[in-house]
């Protein structure tokens, strides 16, 4: 047992110090009926590293890796190139195997990068303060709604139809069990909907996404004004954080809370998780934020240092009065985000965003030239929707059979809705090449 250092001699010696005859004696508080005589049945015994690795190579062999094939899926998770430095850094034992920095004297490494992370998030979003990260964008969005409810003491959230359907679903689930209303304002494929008209005096918040799930880019300045006039908050969600390198930040549009999925920076696709939620707001709402916060202070020698702070919001102090039950952040994913964004810097981040937009534009133009394919977006960042002459799910399966991962059929996330059945959502990042786009176009011509 390679992870267990106790030898049988150790165990005997320790039992004698304890004054117990056997380990079983130490388990005497377990009711006899539940104390297993032997190991749990029906499960295999321990295996060596070689065997374990082989098993996982077996799992991997049954999947189609995006690295080995033309790839154009987005929809809230984006394939970007992450510099090798990032992965090296998060694997350093001092980061990887450290816990929540409850002892700040010996966890300044974690605390300082989280402080850098918080600052980066405020800069990207154009907001005042940010927390040390949430589980991911979807859960962060639900927390944002709960926070708006607390602030406004209202219980109706208005959800844009442009919000990622699974994010919406997370809000709805929260609403159902935590007791508030989540009203959906259905968007059409062109991304048009009149949210301003729907805001009323019961509305705690309006939740919009930019670019929308379908890829459209919108200016929410007027919506923000309308929200504020009605005493409601505007929550802006960004699922592709790279877009902030090119687009007006939500803070400038008047957002009160901004939630981003940060996966694109520093974190691989990972089949959906773990990702990292970015969460930012205005100074005045600081104490209503969920999640961990790192603040600057000084030590006994007057040197700058960092600590977890404002923990009076948190469950381990406030218990049933906490702002959230959350007690974990996405520490290591936040580190990956911070290291990657630091490597990019101002110039690199802006260039990365330009490159994404340019690649997506090239793809859009190529696809729009395919007979029967209609581009629905006037505006987009690195993702857009096309309408096909037949159900997109069938087309995607046909492409997969040719080992091309050619986008997401909208119907997978919005089932049983004939109006989206033929819609295909495609993304292109800096990783896209002509050598990937051209086979997609060719294959699409064949299968349509």
């Amino acid at each position, binding site marked *: 047992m390679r992870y267990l250092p106790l030898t049988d001699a150790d165990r005997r010696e320790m039992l004698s110090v304890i004054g117990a005859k056997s380990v079983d004696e130490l388990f005497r508080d377990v009711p006899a009926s539940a104390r297993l005589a032997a190991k749990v049945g029906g499960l295999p015994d321990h295996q060596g590293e070689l065997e374990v690795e082989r098993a996982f190579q077996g799992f991997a062999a049954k999947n189609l890796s995006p690295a080995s094939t033309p790839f154009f899926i987005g929809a809230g998770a984006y394939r970007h190139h992450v510099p090798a430095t990032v992965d090296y850094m998060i694997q350093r034992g001092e980061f990887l*195997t450290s816990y929540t920095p409850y002892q700040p004297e010996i966890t300044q490494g974690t605390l300082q990068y989280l402080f850098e992370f918080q600052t980066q998030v405020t800069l990207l979003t154009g907001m005042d303060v940010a927390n040390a990260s949430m589980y991911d964008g979807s859960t962060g969005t639900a927390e944002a709604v709960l926070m708006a409810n607390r602030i406004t003491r209202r219980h109706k959230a208005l959800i844009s139809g442009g919000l990622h359907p699974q994010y919406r679903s997370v809000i709805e689930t929260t609403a159902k069990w935590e007791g508030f209303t989540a009203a959906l304002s259905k968007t059409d494929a062109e991304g048009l909907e009149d949210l301003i008209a729907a805001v009323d005096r019961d509305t705690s918040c309006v939740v919009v996404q930019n670019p929308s799930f379908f890829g459209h880019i919108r200016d929410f300045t007027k919506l923000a004004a309308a929200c504020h006039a009605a005493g409601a908050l505007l929550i802006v969600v960004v699922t592709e954080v790279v877009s902030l390198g090119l687009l007006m930040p939500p803070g400038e549009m008047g957002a009160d809370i901004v939630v981003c999925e940060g996966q694109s920076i520093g974190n691989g696709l990972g*089949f959906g998780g773990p990702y990292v939620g970015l969460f930012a707001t205005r100074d005045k709402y600081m104490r209503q934020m969920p999640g961990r916060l790192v603040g600057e202070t000084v030590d006994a020698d007057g040197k700058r240092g960092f600590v977890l702070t404002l923990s009076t919001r948190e469950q381990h102090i406030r218990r049933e009065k906490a702002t959230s039950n959350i007690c*974990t952040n996405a520490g290591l994913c936040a580190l990956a985000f911070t290291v990657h964004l630091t490597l990019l810097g101002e110039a690199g981040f802006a260039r990365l965003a330009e490159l994404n937009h340019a690649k997506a534009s090239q793809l859009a133009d190529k696809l729009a030239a395919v007979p029967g394919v209609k581009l629905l977006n006037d505006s987009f960042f690195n993702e857009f929707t096309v309408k096909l002459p037949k159900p997109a799910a069938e087309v995607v399966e046909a492409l997969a059979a040719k080992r091309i991962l050619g986008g997401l059929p909208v119907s997978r996330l919005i089932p049983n809705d004939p109006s989206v059945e033929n819609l295909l959502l495609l993304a292109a990042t800096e990783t896209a090449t002509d050598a990937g786009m051209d086979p997609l176009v060719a294959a699409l011509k064949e299968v349509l």
Partner: protein
Amino acid sequence: IEEPLIFEMGQTGRCGVDLPEPPKVKERLNGLRRKGTIGLPGLAEPQVVQHYTRLSQKNYAIDMGVYPLGSCTMKHNPRINEKVARLPGIGDLHPLQPVSTVQGALELIDSLAHWLKTLTGMPAVAMSPAAGAHGEMCGMMAIAAALEAKGERAKRKTVLAPESAHGTNPATAAALGFVVKPIPANDRGRVDLAALKAALGPDVAAIMLTNPNTCGLFESDIVEISKAVHEAGAYFYCDGANFNAIVGRVRPGDLGIDCMHINLHKTFSTPHGGGGPGAGPVVLSAPLAPYAPYPWIVKDGDTWRVAEDGAKVEGAPLGRLKAFHGQMGMFTRALAYIMSHGADGLKQVAEDAVLNANYVMAALKDVMSPAFEGPCMHEALFDDSFLKDTGVSTLDFAKAMIDEGYHPMTMYFPLVVHGAMLIEPTETVAKEDLDQFIGALRSLTAKAKTGTAAEDFKAAPLYAPRRRLDETLAARKPVLRWKPSNNPPGIDPLKQAAE
């Protein structure tokens, strides 16, 4: 040398990546191009590597030594788990690829689910919760859903929880609109069975219990508790934070539990990563299983499918807790850990964890003050009575451990014990390292008891990257982000002259 913030290191014209010139295209941004700069600093790659390397060196970590943080299970994080999580075809899959192209990934999740169900003796598991607290939310929602299905949700508004519970328990219950009613502990540090029975009634939705509990003790009346709870028409939520103590040796399903979250980073050693990411799958009893949230990974014959929102499943899912399918990266690591141990190894894990804790307890009980009699499970709880009249507080004592080269134990938790110190060595610490640790604690207690060392203790730590930090200042005047103006004096490397 002080380590500046990246914002104090940046220069315009520097960049840590090289990206090609974007092809010229017609811009389609709806006129919403960002105006002005973001304000991100520019650093070259060598600077970034050095900065974060130096920061890392200011951390304590499992890889450096004993990390006896009670209730956190800071045990060895094997590197093979990191390696398999990064295999092409595992680490790089998109969650929304066609299901036909991710059969191996679904099989992997289902394999882990099978292990979790079998180890707990429970028929179902919800895989998607992102962390322990999220798992609690999932479990309590499932209970709410079951109550609703029975038409009892409005009636049953009370959740019972012991005073020693993790703060997440009441926070979760409260978020779901339940009223939390504390149940007292008896003098053996367990739930007072009589008080519990008295509190049970038609208004009670559930009990939330941690077992082994936060005092490191097994709730010996647990079978009777579950019987009483079920007889009262309520559900039994178990906080699985301390599952490490019993994994492979006791199946929670045999105890009558209805649901339990499993912190994969505790029991199954996914890396703690400075506080996350976690993963908190929830095992469910038959009555709760139908309410498991989307997505469900379903095996049809030889292939797996993902039942997503609105899909037909044999149940009534409570909804969705998170986009996509859960913390896959953590599933991969946990499964690798589990396969490495196997059924035989996991049993040994529990035994060695409990043995190590009892050894620490036995070796320190004459100089420190155990909070309760009798054997503990995976952690040893002391109160601060041994420090009485020394002028040394629990906090001081813990900070002094830093100068001995150790991470402090958990302090002031559980709240039910005065000046609590909760030591969890875990099973991956060698006896000789425990002996050294015990020796250090013994000499600290001796020093404290001289009665003349309080000042020394209050000054600790002296040999850490930082001395004690002013937490009050941090909370009173929160500075949560860098701004050009909050450069402290002396840190302005950009302006340092060459001579």
